[in-house]
């Protein structure tokens, strides 16, 4: 990170308009499906007979199976959608959801911890770039001055992807973003601080006033009950509530650039279920929440990109306990305006597992996960040079974002 000179700093202050000085016009929401999601049962390769052969119990019925609402929903001549994902179908059809097939890491261990760790850090197997990939992005991106809410994760602790980010906050709701004044009247304290920071002739005036401005906005948000836009209806789950808080922050224009949220429970070794059951419940939560989020943010779609990834997909075969074991490639989802939505991008590698030698088998990895992250950061966010976040990595061109 090049040192910023005082002159550059003053120039930027001069260029600053009414917006917060660190405010960015783009926001990335990262959803991590912890546990290794079986995306083969979300975006179903129904035209591949092998799929039904090797998943006799847990496969999702063919769109033309005649099983009514249990049939998967046809997307194109090859793929269909899990019926519990119908909420996201309009988003897909309207071209705001792109899916990239067979994304993954070079990590052969099959370990949740190691693979998640590698992905959170944006590393190659056994190669450490240092810190989290989102933290590197925040430090590398143009401008580089941040607000207290530039990076937020929903939950009790910061994810490793934000390791090393200056001032990233782990919160469960915007209620935590406030001045905790000893006399319980934050307005009094804010008034004093406004006067003090207003009078500062040095470098602190702008960030101080920005912070106070931001608190004011959050305060006014808190005062009124949040009503999602366009009648968006979030399901009743912790994950949906988290997305709702993120939507609230985005609409409050507090300078949110990166938000992280997890959905756990995808490690479906045992009785995974099919159209209903363990995984179907998660799929429904994910899809309903994302659809509500998309509706709620309908006025902000240009600005917001949502990325959904997991540490690995699962084996193509169902195992003896009607579940699936750890696999490799998975389908990544990218939501937002400007993506090449309404299609499944990338090549379908087939379900033949024989050629895998190192580590667990499963869908062959066609795209390194960093190619996805890199394209999102350079095309939808403010990253100028992918090397600043993924040093030494040459991203493959996927074409997630419309040229």
């Amino acid at each position: 990170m090049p040192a910023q000179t005082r002159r550059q700093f003053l120039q930027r202050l001069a260029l600053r308009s009414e917006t917060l000085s660190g405010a960015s016009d783009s926001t990335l929401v990262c959803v991590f499906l912890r546990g290794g999601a079986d995306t083969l049962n979300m975006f179903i390769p129904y035209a591949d007979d092998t799929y039904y052969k090797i998943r006799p119990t847990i496969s999702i019925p063919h769109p033309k199976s005649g099983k009514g609402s249990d049939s998967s929903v046809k997307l194109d001549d090859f793929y269909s959608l899990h019926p519990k994902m119908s909420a996201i179908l309009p988003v897909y059809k309207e071209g705001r959801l792109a899916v990239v097939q067979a994304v993954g890491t070079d990590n052969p261990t099959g370990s949740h911890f190691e693979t998640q760790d590698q992905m959170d850090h944006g590393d190659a197997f056994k190669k450490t770039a240092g810190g989290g990939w989102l933290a590197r992005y925040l430090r590398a991106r143009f401008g580089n001055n941040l607000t207290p809410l530039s990076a937020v994760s929903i939950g009790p602790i910061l994810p490793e992807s934000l390791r090393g980010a200056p001032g990233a906050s782990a919160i469960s709701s915007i209620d935590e973003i406030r001045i905790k004044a000893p006399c319980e009247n934050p307005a009094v304290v804010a008034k004093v601080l406004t006067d003090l920071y207003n009078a500062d002739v040095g470098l602190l005036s702008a960030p101080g006033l920005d912070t106070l401005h931001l608190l004011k906005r959050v305060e006014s948000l808190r005062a009124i009950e949040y009503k999602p836009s366009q009648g968006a209806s979030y399901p009743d789950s912790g994950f949906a509530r988290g997305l709702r808080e993120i939507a609230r922050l985005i609409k409050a224009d507090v300078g949110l650039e990166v938000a992280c949220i997890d959905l756990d429970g995808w490690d479906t070794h045992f009785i995974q279920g099919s159209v209903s059951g363990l995984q179907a419940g998660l799929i429904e939560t994910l899809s309903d929440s994302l659809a509500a989020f998309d509706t709620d943010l309908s006025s902000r779609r240009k600005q917001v990109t949502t990325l959904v990834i997991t540490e690995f997909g699962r084996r193509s075969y169902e195992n003896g306990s009607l579940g699936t074991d750890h696999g490799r490639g998975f389908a990544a989802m990218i939501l937002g305006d400007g993506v090449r939505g309404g299609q499944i991008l990338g090549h379908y590698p087939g379900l033949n597992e024989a050629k895998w030698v190192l580590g667990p088998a499963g869908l062959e990895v066609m795209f390194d996960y960093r190619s996805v992250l890199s394209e999102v950061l350079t095309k939808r966010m403010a990253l100028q040079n992918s090397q600043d976040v993924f040093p030494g990595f040459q991203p493959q061109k996927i074409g997630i974002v419309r040229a």
Partner: protein
Amino acid sequence: MTSKITRRNFLAIGGLIGCALPFGGCSNLNGVIADRLGAGIPKKVSVTDGAEIDPVFNLLSRAGFGPWPGDVERVREQGVKAWIEEQLEPDKIDDKICDFRTRRFESIFLDPGTCYEFKREALRKDLCRYHLLRSVYSKRQLLESMVEFFSDHFNIYIEKGDCIYLKATDDRSVIRKNALGRFRDLVIGSATSPAMLVYLDGKENRKEGPHGIPNENYARELLELHTLGVDGGYSQKDVYEAARCLTGWRLHSGSNRGTAYFDAALHDDGEKVVLGKKIPSGAGKKDVEMLVDITCNHPSTAKHIAKKLVAHFVSEEPPAGLTKRVAKRFSESGGQIKPMLREILNSFEFNASAGTKLKRPFQYVVSCLRATGADTMAGDPVLEFLTRMGHGPFQYPTPDGYPTEANPWLGTLLWRWNFAFALCSNEVDSANVTLDSLCSAIGLESLHGTQNAPDILFAYFAGRRPSQDESKTFRQYAAHRDLNDEKVRAELIGLILSSPAFQKV
């Protein structure tokens, strides 16, 4: 001036422990002891109220972590030059009170092998708490400031690999041991420090052959960050040659687990040329010393270190004249650190720039604890504030260390304010302040009827009287409020600690 622990005071400690232990851990035992030993809040503290920041206040704020109540007058009495000289000989400064607070963190004093018997979480806490408490309570303030400086300069991220088991040894035998010594000793110590061998992959660095290939990671940072600096005039070939010099260092497993040794079989013993200087073949483990001497004697290193030191103590845009003088001290003394510090701390530039440099979150938190005379054992709630501000000790992932410049830290104000308010209202578990003692020490037994009470309090914390604007703001706040009310007083002092003046040194 340092207070020696007398025999009588020692007996007092014994007596206190004797009476406290049966109650199962009296939380402010340390505070009680510190009071007995004259290291608490003195009965009387004078306040400097010139329009500009008092030079003694500036010295204590920049050469250390800010004045403890009573420090300013002690140093004034002693004389600035004498204080600097005293600080440059830290071993002669009695630091038993701080030692007493920090000796419970046993993993700090153990060798790596024994550290492996601890859980990572326990080691992480010991390291962070030890580091924070020494910064708050040590009378060797300049040493602590240099420890912070070199912990960034030779940054090690303890979450990588086994670094967490090895950092305590690095802190003890490399950083603290040499922080006021010779720069080359720091570099040599660091080059073969087990934690550094893990952090920058030195232990994987071996001669080209069936057992591996050179790993340039450390060699590159040695030239780019630790010595010459990125524009210091080295080539990619120099990086490669330096990496060859450093092949063969490994870490023991088994009984000496985590200690470094030199494996000649993995060392490239051929001739190397680094920065135009020849390192003859057959020198084996001596290569490191020759390499480090070549890099440390290079004129770019003197400039680079001078510039970074001036940035640390004076301004993120180091004044060229001072930097040049400091670099000269480096060159003429063979890289001794003390002459450089003497040059900086006695310089015109050091005082002329008072109050313009943003405290990083760590310095901010420590200076709040010191200024209020807080009694803390640096438990989780204190450390959480640091983490929230992105400045947990030894938590910086990349080898460049936490940034010195203000810009990356400008988003942390909200959490600074909340720390100040929480501390002043005793809401930070594991840190206690007694603001009434502090107020009476600075002559405000009662804040009633003292119209200029806010001005006096401000002057105590800022080292200067408030400007007209500042004074007006605080007086407006204080008008119609009962300043003797505990909460109001906490809020007023919290506001002073939150003001721009207290964010800067």
